[in-house]
């Protein structure tokens, strides 16, 4: 009886949140800023950062559009279409 209870508990335990990949994260950010992406993950990710702490991420969406995501040192995120 106890064994059965343990098996049932393991089967019905609430699963923890799965970690998202960087490709998914960038795609979500692009969509969150109102740009179409055509999928849930981007490809060809390029990252750059300057001495002031600003970050620039370039990535291609599944619909073929390439975007640039700028993250300022204050934590502001903006998205630009490149092509």
């Amino acid at each position, binding site marked *: *009886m106890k064994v059965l209870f343990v098996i049932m508990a393991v089967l019905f335990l*609430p699963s*923890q*949140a*799965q*970690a*998202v*990949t*960087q490709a*998914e*994260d*960038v795609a*979500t*950010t692009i969509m*969150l*800023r109102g740009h179409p992406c055509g999928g849930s993950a981007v490809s060809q990710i390029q990252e750059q950062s300057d001495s002031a702490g600003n970050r620039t*991420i370039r990535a291609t969406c599944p619909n073929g559009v390439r975007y640039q*995501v700028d*993250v300022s040192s204050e*934590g*502001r*995120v903006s998205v630009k279409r490149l092509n």
Partner: protein
Amino acid sequence: MKFLKRPLSLVFLLSVCLFELTFAGCAKSKEAIVSEGRVVELHVVERAVEPEPVYVGELEPSEEKLVEETAVEEPRSKEKLSDLQKIEAKPPEITVEELIERLKKTEAIGFLTKLAIRADVLDFKKSVELYRKRGALKETVDTLKSRFNGLMLKIMALLERDPPLSKDIYSARESIWKSLVEAKS
């Protein structure tokens, strides 16, 4: 007692006894969890809703006592039911700070997305402050509320992989709204 001499009837009797024992064991294990969760509160509610039948008629003295005991237990079960209703009516108390901490820690949203949401929330807070300073907060409450609802929907959609947090934010949305609007600068 003739049936005891037959082996088949003995087996049947034993199996019935075993079934009764396991069933009683399950009931006891259910009662053992009573103090821990709501699921078991429901079990108590079921019991309260369906009281044991009371037979009235010509009874022996010992049976009369039993009837009296069950009659006394009924109001108790009603009290229990009302107490449970009070507990269920109260929403779970989750502070805004706790939700923010959980949002920071969750792995369901990536770092960039978290930054983007943070920027949106800060913008929203700024606009609330701006309307409050102008003294036009009452006039724009409806538009601010719809913006707030949109923001909450966005966050809940992003928390698709963390349903417990999404559910808690949804249940605490009114208190978040109140804390935003009623806060004095």
